[in-house]
């Protein structure tokens, strides 16, 4: 029974819209904004990585990193919306950010708060820019914004939660497994761009 329910639950994530619903596009409103960072594995892993890194360092940095990321992301989105200037190699930097965060967690780098925020700021700018480009295409952009910011924040919190509990099991070795997985995915994204 539990197995069947689990399968149904997992399958429910892979639904597609009926073709008759012509108004439902890839960028409709709150729902698609919310699912965008969740289903886009590159965004998901980068934000998850930020949360895990914050939890790994502990102290004030545990919440200052997830707090700063959306704010800097906002600047990136504004640059994209206002078209002040165009970022180049956006996809590449996003893939690199995933890989870099994996490596950072793996080597347990623990800089001071300002440097940590500076590092994630660079990543956040590009993630925000990528979201900002998609905004004008949404049917209901304001709901789309609320959705993706909320979802981004929740992924951070998920990362912080996982990172916080990882520390308590197997002497923190779970961190290494997570870090290696994130790095491999980062490499895969980078590889995918050039293939």
């Amino acid at each position, binding site marked *: 029974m539990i197995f069947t329910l689990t399968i149904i639950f997992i399958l429910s994530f892979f639904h597609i819209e009926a073709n008759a619903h012509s108004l439902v596009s890839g960028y409709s409103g709150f729902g698609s904004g919310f699912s965008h960072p969740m289903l886009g594995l590159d965004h998901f892993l980068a934000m998850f990585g930020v949360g895990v890194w914050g939890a790994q360092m502990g102290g004030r940095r545990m919440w200052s990193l997830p707090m700063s990321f959306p*704010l800097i992301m906002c600047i990136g989105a504004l640059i994209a919306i206002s078209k002040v200037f165009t970022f180049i190699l956006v996809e590449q930097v996003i893939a690199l950010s995933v890989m870099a965060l994996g490596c950072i967690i793996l080597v347990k780098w623990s800089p001071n708060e300002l440097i940590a925020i500076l590092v994630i700021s660079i990543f956040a700018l590009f993630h925000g820019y990528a979201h900002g480009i998609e*905004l004008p295409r949404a049917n209901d952009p*304001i709901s789309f*914004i609320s959705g993706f910011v909320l979802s981004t924040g929740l992924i951070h919190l998920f990362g912080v939660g996982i990172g916080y509990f990882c520390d308590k099991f197997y002497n923190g070795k779970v961190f290494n497994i997570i870090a290696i997985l994130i790095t491999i995915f980062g490499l895969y994204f980078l590889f995918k761009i050039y293939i």
Partner: protein
Amino acid sequence: MIILLCFIISKLFSIPLQEYGLFQSGMYNMLNNYIFLLCLLGLSLLFLNSKKNIAYISYLVIFLLVYISTLIFIDSILRLIFLYNLDYLWGFDKFPLLVLYFLSILLGIILWFNPINNLVKIFLIIIFSFIISFHVALKDIEIFTLKSFISFPGGNLLIIVWLSIILIYLLKKFNKKYVHIFSKIYGSWLITIGIISAIFSLLY
């Protein structure tokens, strides 16, 4: 609270004959507005650390006073806006939503500092109530009378009171330390949503 919930659900599913369902549309107006719902969660986070019930009652009274008086004096407020050409600043069609975005930014900033001071909270509830009431009044299609108040603004009010009670009640169950950290993080989300939404709706 359960009776209130039953009443809201029954109202949502029944539109009486000879009416335009303004009460229901008022309720949907609040439930469909994501920015407003996020702001309400922010407000609930701010009011969590009040211990006495009398404080909550006083906040509710202040909220109602400002809410009703803004609705009554909406014409004078609009006249002032037209007098100083504030409508040219953003475009009048964008006014009802832009005020919500600014509320979201303000709430986010205040959540960062998370003040315990009662005066700050009262100031915030006045601003919150004024903006919500202004937003409701600009969307209302009736001239303000006691009956119209029960219709569209009443539906809005019911959802505001119900949701804030539930959110405060639920959030009180969590550890204060975690709620405090969460409110700081949540503040940054509100600021982000407010800024991007405001700039986007001004540009497009």
